[in-house]
């Protein structure tokens, strides 16, 4: 019954792949765009969950990896003329490297101090990007249309980027599952519960945390490279948007932190909600209020999130929903 023990993984993958295939089935570009937005959030939320849900470290500035990957990837394609795949790898590598460096320093901090530090890192990177002329400074960078030529034009390039994103999202989900089920994942969970006790038990906390941080950073890096390639322009404000970082936290909380399915469902639900609010005449002006009320309700009454709550209902559900 090995497939049953991995049911959580299959379910999560089914949702992600199912969503990914919708535009292929309907052939509609609008669906593709909508799913693209959702998948970006799914990938980012799932990777943040590796740090937040498993290791218990709250990062408010996780978007810095998205922005850094975006800038490196964009630079690679538009200035250096690299192929998109190389650019995506470069973006992921750059983010991973930053996480490694940061891991060795700020991961020493606990709780609120760590959260504040991540905000500081994000703001510092944004300010740095604004001042570096090589990366466009405050005006940012723009891509010439001809950059899409090697991929068969803008229309095909958008589809290729979409499929690449689907791939990255699936990888993120699988990685999340593998981490959770491994000894490494267990080490992270012990760190989350009581870091000092974990150290006493022989867990190399520093190594484990750093590895988790790096893993949580490479996927946003790759996604960032893809996202900004598709958008044809990148600016410091848009790349390092602190608000988006916080929205990721909302998604994880909504779905259920520390679970595999939680970030996925949370991201989907949140994006759909926002989409509905944005395009409805009645709620247009108050979507921030609605999102805020929703977040407050979850935090106060259902802190385990949707999946967490469901899992607490019965043993079957607990085993089925990862």
């Amino acid at each position, binding site marked *: 019954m090995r497939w049953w023990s991995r049911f959580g993984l299959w379910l999560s993958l089914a949702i992600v792949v199912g969503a990914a295939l919708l535009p292929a089935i309907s052939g509609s570009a609008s669906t593709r765009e909508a799913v693209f937005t959702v998948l970006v959030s799914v990938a980012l939320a799932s990777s943040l969950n590796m740090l937040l849900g498993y290791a218990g470290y709250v990062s408010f500035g996780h978007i810095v990896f998205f922005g850094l990957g975006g800038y490196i990837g964009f630079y690679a394609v538009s200035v250096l003329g690299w192929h998109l795949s190389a650019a995506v790898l470069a973006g992921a590598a750059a983010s991973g490297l930053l996480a490694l460096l940061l891991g060795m320093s700020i991961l020493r901090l606990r709780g609120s101090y760590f959260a504040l530090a991540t905000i*500081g890192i994000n703001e510092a990177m944004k*300010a740095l990007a604004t001042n570096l002329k090589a990366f466009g400074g405050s005006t940012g960078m723009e891509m010439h249309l001809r950059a899409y030529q090697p991929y068969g034009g803008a229309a095909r390039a958008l589809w290729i980027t979409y499929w690449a994103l689907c791939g990255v999202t699936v990888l993120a989900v699988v990685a999340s599952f593998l981490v959770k089920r491994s000894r490494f994942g267990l080490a992270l969970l012990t760190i989350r519960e009581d870091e000092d006790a974990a150290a006493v038990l022989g867990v190399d906390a520093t190594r484990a945390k750093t590895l988790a941080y790096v893993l949580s950073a490479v996927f946003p890096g790759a996604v960032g490279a893809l996202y900004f390639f598709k958008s044809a322009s990148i600016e410091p404000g848009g790349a390092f948007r602190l608000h988006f970082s916080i929205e990721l936290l909302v998604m994880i909380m909504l779905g259920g*932190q520390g679970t595999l399915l939680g970030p996925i469902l949370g991201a989907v639900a949140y994006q759909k909600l926002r989409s509905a609010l944005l395009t409805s005449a009645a709620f247009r*002006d*108050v979507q921030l*209020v609605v999102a805020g009320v929703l977040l*407050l309700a979850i*935090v106060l009454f259902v802190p385990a999130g949707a999946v967490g709550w469901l899992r607490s209902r019965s043993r079957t559900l607990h085993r089925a929903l990862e």
Partner: protein
Amino acid sequence: MIARLLPSLVDGVLIGVIYGLAAMGLTLIFGVMNVINLSHGSMIAMGMFGVYALFTGAGLNPFVGVAAVAALGLVAGVLVYAVAVHRVRNAPHLSGLLATFAVNMILMGLGTRFLSTNFRNVDFSLGSFALGPVTVTGTRLAACGCAALVTGLLYGFLYRTRAGKEIRAVANDRAAAELVGIRSTRVLALSFGLGTSLAAVAGGLIATLFPFTVLSGGTYELKSFVIVVLGGLGNPLGALIGGVLLGLVEGAVPIFLEASWVPVIEFALFVLVLLVRPQGLLGARR
């Protein structure tokens, strides 16, 4: 060199005291209940609008208006505590952070909806004073003075009144305070209200100096984060000193570098302090 630096340093110290006041609100809340109030920015914005509304609507002198704003901020804070924070006061950090952030989202959403993102200006001038190479505006001097006064009142409250002592007791050790009969819920609510009140007052004072919108609070919130880390989380005096320090940095950096490097220096300093001396310059209370 001194002549070049002096005007900026003086300006920096004056505004730094006001930044410090805002940061004191944040650090007080953290010190008492270990929660970083992410609705700090919207409280500052509320203070700005409060003073603006009283000034344009009732012609009330903004520096008198801040007294009313302080009271409003207190009430608002107690309300926010009761609704959002009380339930999660014993929960892990994330809950407190997200609860206050949710409140922020709600307030910002309502603010944008009803007040729009138009810029507002409190057109109140007190002239300017020239002392040698330094020209200081009257409003900046008055705002700084007001902030200093409020700081003095805060200290008087914390060290001379019973309620203040209760707050310090709960900040020290909540369980022990409860054991000696202190009603911790009341104290927590009061502290939260006090914290937001300080934020609102600071906002009101800032409104007399610069134009603002509903969204302006965010910038000052980020500055408050930097300051509380510099000074030590939970330490009000540290917040004041950190504020002055930040003001000095903001004043001095543009003289030597391009002004656009100010935030880079600020946040780099922020991260550096967190890494090298996380308890801040004056030592944290937690």
